[in-house]
């Protein structure tokens, strides 16, 4: 491959691949990310795709995008605006132009800019004029005709030929960023090992794109982002759903239990069930249930029988599972319920991200029904919090809800691989076969957790269920007993605080403004705060991963700042929860309910208003 005359170093760059939902943009983005990660860049990705598998071709609603943010230093978000936009059709330009930096580069498939496609995208005239594309470095590449030409001797049908357009575009991007094609070519060889002609076609298209960019000197100079100075060790790329699945499996191994997952497919949570279904080599029992309720009820049956049990879902599924979560609270069985949040209410925005299930997770059940609630905040720490959720469930005999979201579930980042020996031990709260008679609701004095007696064990036969019971497990409607048991269940969950680490303030421990948030929207807030800190503002940041119980030092941390602002992708659910728990503080809010993550700019602007207000 040719040498490059001019190369510039950049700290970070954002690239967005965008096209019709059938154009293979998710794969293109993933392949680019993997190559960048192998090179040693830190990165975060954000797939953004329509709910319809194939939305009307050429329409803005059918645009599927994949954004990658890579850098020389640590990357916490997929970035706000793109430096490079790859647009396979006019609709992709229409959908993304406002998210592309002026002066940035737009690569588009000239052949797809037919009158019909321009009209379908909703343009009234030529997009170059209407969207004033002169502001950008535009590369109008005849991608469709180039792949047709490049593959003409392979004897493939026209449809298959055109399917390699995305690889041509990817080849161009590899040239722009001075990347090697090796990893992607290896991917073709593995993926299409049964179909050598497809391997060949993709390789040719990829190289054709690379050489095309080189020939036209698509962008001079070429951009180079050196590897990030990240900690030594072994790394891999991981997305939130796989990290969640692996966290559960790691917990099962540590607890020496078998893992059972009972779930019903639902966007964007299905990836967890899919990953666990593929892990029979590690003995995972996966059950694709007939509905959401059966998902959790089979898991409860498995929990009763001594497995580490979990169920994964999204908001609508969590609603359906409410009654069974109540049963888990009453039966005091360990179970992990994962809610990969999406835009709601009802079916809402299935493929878009939101954080509006918080109050449902905390309170959405009949009766006094406390559960532990955790929230992961990066794709890779889904592993840690799934592990923690299982550890708390098994050691405290309680259901635990783990909140992630569509942004974390599908987003991926490089992850330093943990060694199993470094993870904490998990000691399930088993009953002792020698302490007879076994009383199902007898508790240990420290945690107030009841003891887990597993069917098949002689002498520990017992009955549990949804009716209120005495310590012996006898059904009881006695007023005093009910009140006592309600308090005991509540106190048991409160004592989980023993496992909750203190809040960590990022920045000065006191100051003008504390930016507060939880879960998947934290990366953007964190970067916004860091930028404001660099600009000299007295602002600090905290991320909540433990929602119930809250860390012990909340009050102490909050009291050291003049103002507090709570940032979340809903109308203020966590802010209201904090108002209930710590009414002595005043809470400002930054909220967004567009099915999209925050942008750093949005948070910065609003924080500045608060700081200066």
């Amino acid at each position, binding site marked *: 491959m040719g040498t490059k005359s001019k190369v510039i170093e950049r700290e970070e760059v954002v690239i967005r691949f965008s096209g019709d939902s059938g154009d293979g943009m998710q794969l293109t983005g993933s392949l680019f990310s*993997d190559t960048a990660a*192998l090179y*040693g860049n830190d990165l975060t990705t954000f797939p953004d795709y329509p709910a319809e598998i194939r939305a009307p071709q050429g329409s803005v609603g059918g645009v599927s995008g994949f954004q990658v943010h890579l850098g020389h230093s640590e990357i916490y978000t997929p970035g706000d605006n793109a430096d490079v936009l790859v647009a396979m059709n006019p609709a992709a330009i229409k959908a993304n132009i406002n998210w592309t930096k002026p002066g940035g580069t737009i690569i588009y498939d000239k052949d797809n800019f037919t009158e019909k496609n321009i009209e379908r995208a909703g343009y009234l005239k030529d997009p170059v004029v209407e969207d004033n594309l002169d502001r950008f470095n535009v590369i109008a590449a005849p991608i469709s005709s180039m792949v047709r030409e490049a593959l003409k001797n392979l004897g493939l049908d026209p449809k298959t030929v055109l399917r390699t357009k995305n690889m041509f575009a990817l080849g161009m991007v590899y040239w722009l960023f001075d990347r090697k094609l090796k990893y992607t070519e290896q991917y073709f060889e593995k993926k299409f090992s049964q179909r050598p002609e497809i391997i060949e076609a993709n390789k040719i298209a990829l190289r054709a794109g690379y050489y095309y960019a080189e020939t036209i000197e698509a962008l001079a100079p070429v951009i180079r982002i050196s590897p990030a100075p*990240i900690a*030594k*060790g*072994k*790394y*891999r*790329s991981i997305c939130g759903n796989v990290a969640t699945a*692996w966290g559960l*499996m790691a917990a099962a*191994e540590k607890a020496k239990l*078998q893992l*059972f997952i*009972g779930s019903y497919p639902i966007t964007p949570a299905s990836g967890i069930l899919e990953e666990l279904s593929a892990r*029979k*080599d*590690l*003995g995972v*029992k996966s*059950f694709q*249930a*007939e*509905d959401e*309720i*059966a998902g959790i*009820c*089979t*898991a*409860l*049956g*498995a*929990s*009763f*029988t*001594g*497995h580490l*049990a979990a169920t994964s879902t999204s908001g609508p599924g969590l609603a359906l599972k409410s009654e*069974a979560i*109540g*049963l888990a609270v009453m039966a005091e069985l360990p179970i992990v319920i994962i809610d990969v949040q999406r835009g709601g209410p009802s079916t809402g925005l299935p493929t878009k991200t939101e954080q509006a299930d918080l109050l449902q997770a905390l309170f959405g059940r009949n009766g006094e029904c406390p559960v532990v609630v955790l929230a992961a905040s990066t794709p890779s720490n889904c592993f840690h919090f799934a592990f923690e959720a299982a550890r708390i469930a098994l050691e405290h005999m309680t259901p635990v809800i783990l909140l992630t979201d569509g942004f974390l579930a599908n987003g991926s980042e490089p992850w330093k*691989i*943990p060694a*199993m020996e470094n993870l904490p031990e998990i000691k399930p709260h088993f009953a002792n076969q020698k302490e007879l008679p076994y009383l199902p609701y007898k508790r240990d004095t420290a945690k107030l957790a009841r003891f887990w007696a597993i*069917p*098949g*064990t*002689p*002498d*520990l*036969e*017992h*009955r*549990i*269920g*949804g*009716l209120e019971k005495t310590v012996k497990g*006898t*059904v009881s409607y006695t007023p005093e007993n009910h009140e006592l048991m309600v308090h005991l269940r509540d106190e048991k969950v409160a004592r989980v605080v023993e496992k909750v680490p203190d809040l960590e303030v990022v920045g000065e421990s006191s100051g003008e403004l504390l930016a507060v948030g939880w879960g998947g929207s934290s990366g953007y807030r964190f970067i916004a705060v860091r930028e404001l800190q660099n600009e000299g503002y007295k602002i600090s940041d905290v991320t909540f991963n433990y929602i119930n119980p809250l860390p012990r030092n909340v009050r102490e941390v909050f009291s050291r700042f003049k103002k507090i602002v709570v940032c979340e992708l809903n109308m203020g659910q966590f802010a209201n929860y904090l108002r209930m728990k710590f009414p002595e503080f005043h809470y400002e809010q930054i909220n967004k309910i567009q099915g999209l993550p925050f942008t750093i700019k949005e948070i910065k602007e609003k924080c500045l208003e608060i700081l200066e207000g």
Partner: protein
Amino acid sequence: MTEITSNQVTPRDFKSDQEVRWCPGCGDHAVLNAVQKALSELGIPREKFAFISGIGCSSRFPYYMNTYGFHGIHGRASAIASGVKIANPELSVWQITGDGDALAIGGNHFIHVVRRNIDINIILFNNEIYGLTKGQYSPTSEKGIITKTSPYGTVEEPFSVGELVIGAKGKFFARTIDSNVSLSTRIYVEAAKHKGTSVVEVLQNCVIFNDGIHETVTGKDVRDDRTLILKHGEPMIFGKENNKGLILDGLKLRVVKLGENGISEKNILVHDAFESNPGIQYMLANMRYPEYPVALGVIREVPGPTYENDVVSQINEIKNSSKIKCMDDLLNSGSVWKVE
């Protein structure tokens, strides 16, 4: 006096310390006795039994059994029991449910557990009424029945349990009467021995809200003429005087009298519970009085692979062939790179 060794279990061993709270005269008492009797005949240690129920009068059953028990939520017993059996295929898992619990709110789970053929023994108490909520019609109530929620009579067709089980690809279906403890005991033993989902419909009397609903068929004076107790390999003969039988007349079953029109025992259908084609069994399960006797006994009992065994063998097969043996292997598999 013979000494009882610890290996010998008696029906009494299965009684829990809880006071049985069903109404006096309720059919559930007899079912409880028959189940405890059947369990003592199976030679399975007590700790290997798990009784799972949903909600309804019958669903209190696990509290009265000195075994492992889980009283679930309305309609979901099939799902909970599925989880128990898949988690530990060594357990003898019993689901106690009613016509409302299994066929209304739990209809979806019921057909799917049957379809999957998970080895659970389901005892479905069919009293054609909602008892615990005090007298509303159920999915098995005859069309036109007057209840609290159908003061002018229902306008909907009832389910037939056997028809639903066969439609859901069920492999074991039996029917009994609450009061016939010896028949019931035999059926429960058969159900326990069958590998796969066994559904036993119990024609059960609700003494308060639907008293005597099965009486026209099960009454002492009439039951010999109005029921047919099926036994595999035996001719389908019934009646007080053992003089009635069933023949196949074209595509339909017909009741005939032995000795009339030249009919003898050799013309009578012989029951084949093991036949996988459910055609005749389906007709037997759907027989209604007065045109036919109501069929009791094991109507269908067809062997087939169970879900939980297939799960275990798939896991073992893949465990053997995979290079990934523990989490560390998985974490370090695939595309992994080193930062020096």
